């Protein structure tokens, strides 16, 4: 154990003296946290501006009940300007609702007064708004119709033999799982990227400087050399992950999630659980970095290969974020399982003990297999003269 500690101490000291590399470690997580801050605030802003939907109406005074109904349903009604139809044709106005002056008269006589919604059907950007207005007016009309039937002793149900019910999945849960998927993605990427520079320096750097041969000539076995370096990379990664988690723990409860109708808190217990979930992944990501680094002859070569490794968490991360379905087998896939466990923690549904066991086992099996491969690399003759 003593040589492992000696190597750890040396590598930590060495890494801490590399000020420039240290600074770059913190830039990416800081930017990611800033990204969450911006995304949430931007969403709130967009949603609020979407609510202020103004509808010019001509003849407001002829059908006050409809106007009231619309205003109750998030539509701001304004009197239409002069020559409204011409303005819509010219594209100066999105749409106008025209209430005829004989509306009340026809309404009282059970004739069907027609409202006119003037808009350009080719304009996709306003199609949604127009449909919304039509639905609102129809709903009001249905309500009146139902009342008329009831007065005559007929059930309004006779008018609706079948109905289609909306099941809106863009509810608060789904919205928050997008946000938390992003949080999980940021944490995975942090776990994968933090120690790359250190790992490259400890392995490819050692080859490039020709110090590896002297190191292998000491009585310390390659596996112990590897463990010392692995431990260094793990400590660094987990330290930065802890910092990022701490920052998210402070930031997320202060973001205006409630205005988005999203549950958005991150309790200290969640932070702790996330950290535990990320520990095996940190072991896996750092050993992969070390494996790639020792298989590369130079710093530059290692950097380009590790760049490719980074595609992995991003790809898996997006897959998990965009696919809402979860299968049990996914908890046996390293990286994907961590991502899913994190979402379980964040989604308040909590983690299943079997899932934790599966994920940890699978991740650690992969990590130790990679460490075996890495120590084999250190034993290869080519490592010295190559």
């Amino acid at each position, binding site marked *: 154990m003593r040589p492992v500690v000696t190597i750890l101490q040396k590598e930590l*000291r060495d890494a801490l003296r590399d000020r420039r590399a240290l600074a770059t470690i913190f830039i990416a997580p800081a930017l990611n946290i800033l990204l969450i801050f911006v995304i949430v605030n931007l969403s709130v802003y967009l949603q609020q501006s979407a609510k202020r939907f103004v509808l010019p109406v001509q003849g407001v005074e002829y059908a006050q009940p409809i106007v009231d109904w619309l205003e109750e349903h998030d539509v701001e009604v304004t009197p239409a300007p002069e020559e409204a139809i011409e303005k819509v044709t010219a594209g100066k106005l999105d749409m106008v609702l025209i209430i005829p002056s004989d509306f009340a008269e026809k309404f009282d006589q059970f004739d069907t007064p027609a409202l006119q919604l003037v808009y350009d059907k080719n304009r996709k950007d306003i199609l949604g708004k127009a449909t919304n207005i039509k639905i609102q007016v129809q709903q009001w009309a249905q309500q009146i119709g139902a009342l008329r039937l009831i007065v005559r002793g007929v059930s309004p149900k006779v008018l609706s033999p079948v109905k289609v019910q909306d099941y809106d999945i863009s509810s608060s849960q789904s919205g928050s799982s997008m946000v938390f998927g992003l949080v999980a993605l940021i944490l995975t990427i942090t776990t994968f990227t933090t120690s790359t520079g250190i790992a490259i320096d400890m392995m490819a750097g050692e080859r490039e400087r*020709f*110090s590896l041969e*002297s190191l292998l*000539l000491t*009585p310390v076995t390659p596996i112990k050399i590897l463990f010392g370096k692995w431990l260094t990379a793990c400590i660094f990664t987990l330290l930065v992950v802890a910092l990022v988690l701490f920052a998210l723990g402070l930031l997320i409860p202060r973001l205006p999630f409630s205005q988005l109708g999203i549950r958005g808190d991150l309790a200290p217990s969640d932070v702790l659980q996330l950290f535990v979930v990320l520990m095996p992944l940190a072991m896996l990501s750092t050993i992969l970095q070390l494996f790639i680094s020792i298989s590369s002859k130079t710093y530059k070569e290692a950097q380009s290969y590790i760049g490719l490794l980074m595609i992995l968490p991003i790809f898996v991360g997006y897959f998990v974020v965009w696919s809402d379905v979860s299968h049990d087998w996914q908890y046996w896939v390293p990286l994907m399982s961590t991502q899913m466990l994190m979402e379980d923690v964040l989604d308040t549904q909590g983690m299943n003990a079997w899932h934790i066991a599966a994920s940890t086992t699978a991740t650690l099996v992969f990590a130790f297999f990679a460490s075996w491969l890495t120590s084999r690399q250190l034993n290869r*003759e080519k490592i010295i003269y190559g």
Partner: protein
Amino acid sequence: MIEVRNLRKTYGPVVAVDDVSFSVSPGEIVGLLGPNGAGKTTTMRMLTGLIKKTSGQILIDGKDIESQMTLLRTTLGSLPDGAGLYPRLTARENIVYFGSLYNLPKKQLHQRLDELIALLHMEAIIDRRTQGFSHGEQTKVALARTLIHDPRIILLDEPTNGLDVLTTRAVRQLLLQLKQENKIIIFSSHLMHEVDHLCDRAVVVANGKVTASGSLTELKKETASETFEDAFVKLAYAGVEA
């Protein structure tokens, strides 16, 4: 005592070392000489055990090195060609790191380090980070790192390559002192005046084979040469020379 018998190393069809035999006794400095690519470095690396021999034998005190690898690690000090240092660590930290890896007790480590600082005149540079060290300064630190555990067998691959006069002298004095301490010293070089100054015996390798070995006077006599350099050229480049 180190004995090398019919050592051979091949990489696929390439024969790096064909047939090398020699022996070195304690208190002896033997020069392993030869043109570039003759197989000196490969031979040295086989002696450290980092590269496995294809065939032949390497015996230390009559026993095969493969059976005593653990012992070899603590009794061997090898300075590889172009040995690098950790640039962000000071010279002292570089050397102490290796001392700790050799599991030296702290007191012994620092005592030994002080000795080496004095022997190699490193007082001025010992607490500076090695980034930006001159080639000579780097070699001194690497040499001290190699000798920190007071090894019985010392292998030096081109130790005086590119050093200035003062540093070369310091290294030379150190080697002579180690010889007096009864160490087994093998050093490779292509600088003939170095060999002339230091070696008791020389082993000349060309194309992976030993073409001559013996004391320097013997080799000069054998080739009817005035200087050792002439002798070396005749021995190493036999058949190539016009």
